[in-house]
């Protein structure tokens, strides 16, 4: 909850992680290279006082997570990503099984994301049904660039992917988060190309596709698709983190998203623990577009727009009744800690 002028603004973090990337979990040097690269993102854009030491960053643990998200970080409900990366990490990077442990302790605070990998074909469909039956899966996080054997990625509109999307929809899934962001391993074909979202969004009008990291470095291609597909949304992690050291680009990105998508299709995301929600939200809630951006686009971040981006839009997608949820959260363990502070 972010309080301003006597108003309590409901905050949903649309994109965060609880990973274990300590040396014991590295399957190979790629695991180390992976978390080092994440750490470079962390230190590249965080304010100096929010930069952790590398050891903590590899494995920060549950207490830091609860503090950084809910106690200090204003977040009410967080969408907990699941990223598997078994090729790099022995027990996975942040699997839904591991994420569910913290979800069980704070059930109303987290939306747990599951996932699928169409390369598992028929056998994977059964595993997907099991996951949906055994875990409180609220959404999906898909990672089209993930390695598997010789494969270096897949596309949302691959025939097997459609089988999974059909099944997910049958089983009640509404929201699909797709990682389309800074390139990690596109070999020849571009695994972060956003065009596959266009096909899937057209063919599955009942699903919402939240494109994480707004397709950067393919922001323009993402905007063209989102303009045509009403069920495509902007997940703004990475872009949000520009707000500290690159405020002009942050303003231009937000102005473009507002221009192409409108204020109802933009979701806040911190990408925690890459960046902490507290400093992003502190800055965002008082951020004004620079004069030139305001004049050129004829718009600014109004209180209403801020409210929607911070939580209103995500709550709508996930069918959360904000007032009812606020009341419920006030009574859980974290709510009690916040009240005592």
């Amino acid at each position, binding site marked *: 909850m972010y309080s301003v002028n006597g108003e309590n603004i409901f905050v949903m973090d649309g994109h965060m992680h609880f990973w274990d990337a300590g040396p014991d979990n590295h399957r190979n040097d*790629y695991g180390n290279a992976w978390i080092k690269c994440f750490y470079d993102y962390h230190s590249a854009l965080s304010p100096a006082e929010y930069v952790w030491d590398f050891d903590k960053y590899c494995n920060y643990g549950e207490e830091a997570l609860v503090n950084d998200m809910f106690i200090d970080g204003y977040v009410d409900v967080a969408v907990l990503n699941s990223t598997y990366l078994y090729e790099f990490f022995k027990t996975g990077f942040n699997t839904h099984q591991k994420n569910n442990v913290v979800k069980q302790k704070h059930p109303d605070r987290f939306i747990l994301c599951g996932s699928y990998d169409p390369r598992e074909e028929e056998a994977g469909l059964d595993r997907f049904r099991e996951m949906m039956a055994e875990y409180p899966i609220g959404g999906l996080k898909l990672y089209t660039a993930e390695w598997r054997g010789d494969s270096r990625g897949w596309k949302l509109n691959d025939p097997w992917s459609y089988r999974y999307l059909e099944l997910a929809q049958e089983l009640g899934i509404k929201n699909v988060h797709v990682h389309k962001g800074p390139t990690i391993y596109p*070999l*020849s074909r571009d695994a972060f190309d956003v065009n596959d979202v266009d096909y899937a969004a057209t063919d599955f009008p009942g699903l919402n596709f939240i494109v994480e990291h707004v397709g950067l470095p393919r922001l*323009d291609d993402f905007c063209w698709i989102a303009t045509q597909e009403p069920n495509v949304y902007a997940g703004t992690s990475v872009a949000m983190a520009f707000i500290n050291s*690159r405020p002009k680009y942050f303003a231009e990105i937000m102005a473009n998203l507002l221009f192409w998508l409108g204020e109802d299709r933009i979701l806040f995301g911190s990408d925690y623990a890459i960046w902490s929600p507290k400093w992003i939200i502190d800055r965002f809630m008082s951020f004004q577009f620079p004069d030139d951006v305001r004049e050129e686009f004829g718009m600014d971040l109004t209180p209403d727009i801020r409210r929607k981006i911070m939580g209103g839009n995500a709550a709508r997608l996930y069918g959360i009744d904000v007032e009812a949820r606020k009341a419920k959260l006030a009574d859980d363990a974290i709510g009690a800690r916040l009240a005592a502070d």
Partner: protein
Amino acid sequence: MTPPIDFTLPDFLDANAVVARLDRVLDPELDESVLSLGFVESVFGDDEGRITVSMKLPTFWCAANFSYLMASDTCRELSSLEGVQSVTVKLGDHFVSSEVEEGTGHGKSFAQAFPEGGPDTLEDTRQIFLRKGYLTRQERLLQALKRAGLSFPQISGLRIDDTGSLQVDARTLDRYLERRAELGMDCSGSANLIVDLRGLPVPADDLETYFVRARTTRLAMEASGSLCSAMLQSRNNNWTSAKQA
């Protein structure tokens, strides 16, 4: 911000000529030179004319295809200098550094260097980004023309020859025309100043819409470039031992 490049060159090679060549090598995704992005760490040449360029990219994972383009362009640019016998590009701590070094050093195509990568050709990728770069450079020119007080209908009517009398930064104009020529479009003085990717003039009524789209492409490239610079700086600061290796 960018650390100085360490040059060791034989007498017959002029560092300025080497710099000028490297400045022509672009990161295609960002449409900026590898030099201004700070990717080049050192250039070493021996008396036999064998050159080794050591580069550091912003991340261990920077895409193989773009990395290959930068490395092969570096080889091509430096190989044509007199006295140069061979060029080797080292990417250091990078997930396909040995494939890129070996492949570009022996003039292999990308498909030969990465047989598992499929039939994708780098030329298609290069074209996509040359065209995005064209829109980016054109958008900067349009911004400059707007700042100079011209309306969209006025801009739409301009010919290349008219630019002489306009208050527009020469570099902005040159970079635009340079790319326009590279894409094989008409750059004669009587040609329309603003043409789309098909080489056709943009009618006055459509120019604002056209500009608004180009603006998003320019932002995507610039913001990505800004992130890459921040990442490279962060990488240099965080892992000093890797830097020494």
